[in-house]
C-alpha cells in the first residue's frame, strides 16, 4: 500500500497556560497521494492552525503528525526545516512573495534554500514553471508590478518548484474576484492532475469546494464531516 502524504493521529492543539483554549481536538485523518481536498469551516474553527501543524510550522500539543511517511514528532528544528523545504509547498491568501525579488527569483527561493546557493539550472526550471503558469513575460517584474491573480500564480509556481508531494493552501483565492479565483483554482487542479500533487485547500467558497475530490469540515477544532465529492470533475 502507498504511504499517505498526511497521516494525523489524535492531534490536539491548545494555546495558553492559565486560560487554555483548545483549538484542535484529537483530529484523525489521512490524505492520499494525489488527493485534492477542501478544508472548510467557520472562521476560528482552527483551519489555519491545522495547516500550520501540517506545514511543520507549528507543533501539536499532543498526537502524531506523519508527512510523506516521516514521523515528525521527534524531529528537531533543522530537520523540520529540511523536510518542509523538500516535501511541502505553501500558498497563502496574501501570497507572501518577497517584495524585493523578481517573479523568477521568488520562484527560485525554495531551490536556493535547499541547495544553499544560486545556480543557472535553477533559473531555467523557475522560468519553465513561470511559463507553465502563463507568466513568462513577467519573469523580471517585482510583485508590486503584478496583479493579485498574477502574484498568486507566482506563489503557486513557487510552491511547486521543488516538486513536493503536498501543497498546503490557506484561502488561496480568498482575496481574488470570482473569475480570477476560478483561474487560480483551475491551475492548481491542473498541477494536481498532471503531477499527482496532493492539495489541502482552505476555502470559504462552496463552488470551489464542490470541485475538489473531498471536503473536510472543521467546527470548533473537530472534524464534523469528511465526504467524497460526488460531482468531482
Amino acid at each position: 500500500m502507498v504511504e499517505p502524504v498526511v497521516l494525523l493521529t489524535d492531534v490536539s492543539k491548545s494555546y495558553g497556560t492559565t486560560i487554555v483554549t483548545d483549538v484542535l481536538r484529537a483530529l484523525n485523518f489521512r490524505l492520499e497521494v494525489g488527493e485534492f481536498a477542501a478544508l472548510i469551516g467557520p472562521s476560528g474553527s482552527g483551519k489555519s492552525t491545522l495547516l500550520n501543524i501540517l506545514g511543520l510550522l507549528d507543533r501539536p500539543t499532543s498526537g502524531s503528525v506523519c508527512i510523506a511517511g516521516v514521523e515528525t514528532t521527534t524531529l528537531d528544528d533543522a530537520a523540520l526545516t529540511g523536510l518542509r523545504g523538500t516535501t511541502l509547498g505553501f500558498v497563502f491568501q496574501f501570497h507572501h512573495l518577497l517584495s524585493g525579488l523578481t517573479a523568477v527569483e521568488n520562484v527560485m527561493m525554495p531551490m536556493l534554500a535547499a541547495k544553499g546557493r544560486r545556480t543557472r539550472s535553477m533559473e531555467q526550471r523557475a522560468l519553465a514553471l513561470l511559463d507553465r503558469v502563463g507568466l513568462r513575460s513577467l519573469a523580471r517584474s517585482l510583485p508590486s508590478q503584478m496583479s493579485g491573480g498574477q502574484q498568486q500564480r507566482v506563489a503557486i509556481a513557487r510552491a511547486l518548484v521543488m516538486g513536493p508531494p503536498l501543497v498546503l493552501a490557506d484561502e488561496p483565492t480568498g482575496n481574488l474576484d470570482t473569475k480570477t479565483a476560478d483561474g487560480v483554482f483551475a491551475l492548481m487542479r491542473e498541477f494536481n492532475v498532471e503531477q499527482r500533487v496532493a492539495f489541502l485547500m482552505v476555502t470559504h467558497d462552496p463552488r470551489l469546494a464542490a470541485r475538489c475530490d473531498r471536503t473536510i469540515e472543521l467546527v470548533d477544532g473537530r472534524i464534523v464531516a469528511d465526504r467524497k465529492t460526488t460531482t468531482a470533475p
Partner: protein
Amino acid sequence: MPISWFLALRFLREGRAQSALIVLGAAVGVAVMVFLSALIGGLQTSLVAQTLGTQAHIVVRPADELARPMLRATAATDVLARVERTAQRARSIDRWQHVLARLSHMPGVTAVSPVVAGPAIATRANATRAVLLIGAEAARFAAIYPIRRRMVSGGYDPSRTGCVIGRELAADLGVSVGDKLRLSTGGESSEMYTVEGVFDLGNREVNRRWLLVATRSAQSLLDLSGGVTSIELRVASVFEAESIAAAVRSSTGLVADSWMQSNAQLLVALRSQSSSSEVIQVFVILAVAMGIASVLVVSVAQKRREIGILRAMGTRRSTIVSVFLLQGAIVGVVGSLVGAGLGAGLGAVFAGVARNADGTPTFPFAISWALIGRSSLLALATGVLAAALPARSAARLDPAEAIRNG
C-alpha cells in the same frame, strides 16, 4: 552566489534609501576616525621628530660623583652634616671602547656615537660666546642627528682644526665658512679653529650653543686625552627608548637617560591627546553601531512576514542570521571605504589650506593604508556586531506567528 549573500544584497537594494543612509552614517563616522587619527598621528610624529632632531634617543654617561660626609653617625653620636654636591666636571666613561662595543650590539640600537662634550668659550674679534663643545666622529654623530641634511653652508666633517657651528652662533660671532675663531676652555690655552660648516637644526638654542669639532680636538681642549664623556644612541623604535635605556643601565651600571625621561611632559601631553582622540572614536563607533542596529531592527520588523515565508520554504535559521549579519558587514565595509576616501580628502584639503610661510603643511597628515585598513576592519566588526541583535531576533521569529499576523 550563496543564498545569504543573495538575500542580503536584495534586501539592501530593496531598502535603497535606508541602506544609503546607514552607509552614509558609517562613512561619516569612519571619515571622522580617519581624519582625526591621521591628523593626530601626523601631529605627534612631527612633534616627536622635532624633539628628536636635536636630542639623542639615549645618552649614556658616567654616574654623578657623590660627595660623602666624612663623619658617620654611630649609635652614640648624631652627626650634623651638610653635604654639598661636588662641582661636576667633564669625566670620561671608564673603558668606553668596551662599553661602546657592548651597546652597539644591543637589540633595538641602530647607531652609537661616542661624544666628548664640555663647555668652552668662542671668541671672534670682540664677540665672545659660551658654547657647548662637542667632539665626535662625524659619520657616527651624523647617524644620531640629521645634521648633514641640515647644512646651511659648508659640510660636516671637521678637520683637526676645523669646527662646524649653528646658524645663530655664526650670526652672533659674525662668521661664515672659512673664517677663524678662537676656542678656549677656561685655562690660558686657546686654539684657533676654522669654520668649515654652518647648520640649522631648527632649534635656536642648539643653533646658538653647539660647536662641533673632531674627537681629538675636543679631547685636547677639554683635557680628556683618549676619553669620551658620553655615548649617544639611536634606537629603531623611539617609544622603546626608555626600556632600552633601562637595559643599558642594568648591563653597564652607567647612567642612561632616554629622551622619554627628559621629555616626560611632552609624552604626557601626547598620551592625553591620544586618549582623548580614542574616546572620541569610541563614541563615533557607538553612534555608527547604533545607527546600523536601529535600521536593521526596523528592517527585521518590516520583513517579519517575508522571514516567516522564507522559513516555511525551508530556509535555515542560520541562513536568516547570516542574511542580517551580512547586511551589517556590507554596510560597514562600504561605509568605511567611502569614509576613508572622505577622511583622506578632508585631510588633503585641510593640509592644503593650512600651510606655513615656506609652503610646508602646518598639520602634517599621516594617512596610511594601515590606518585605512584598521578603520575598515573596525567598521566591519562594528557592522557585524550591530547586526547581531536584529539577526538573532529575525532567526527566533516563529514562522507560524509571522505568517498568521501578516
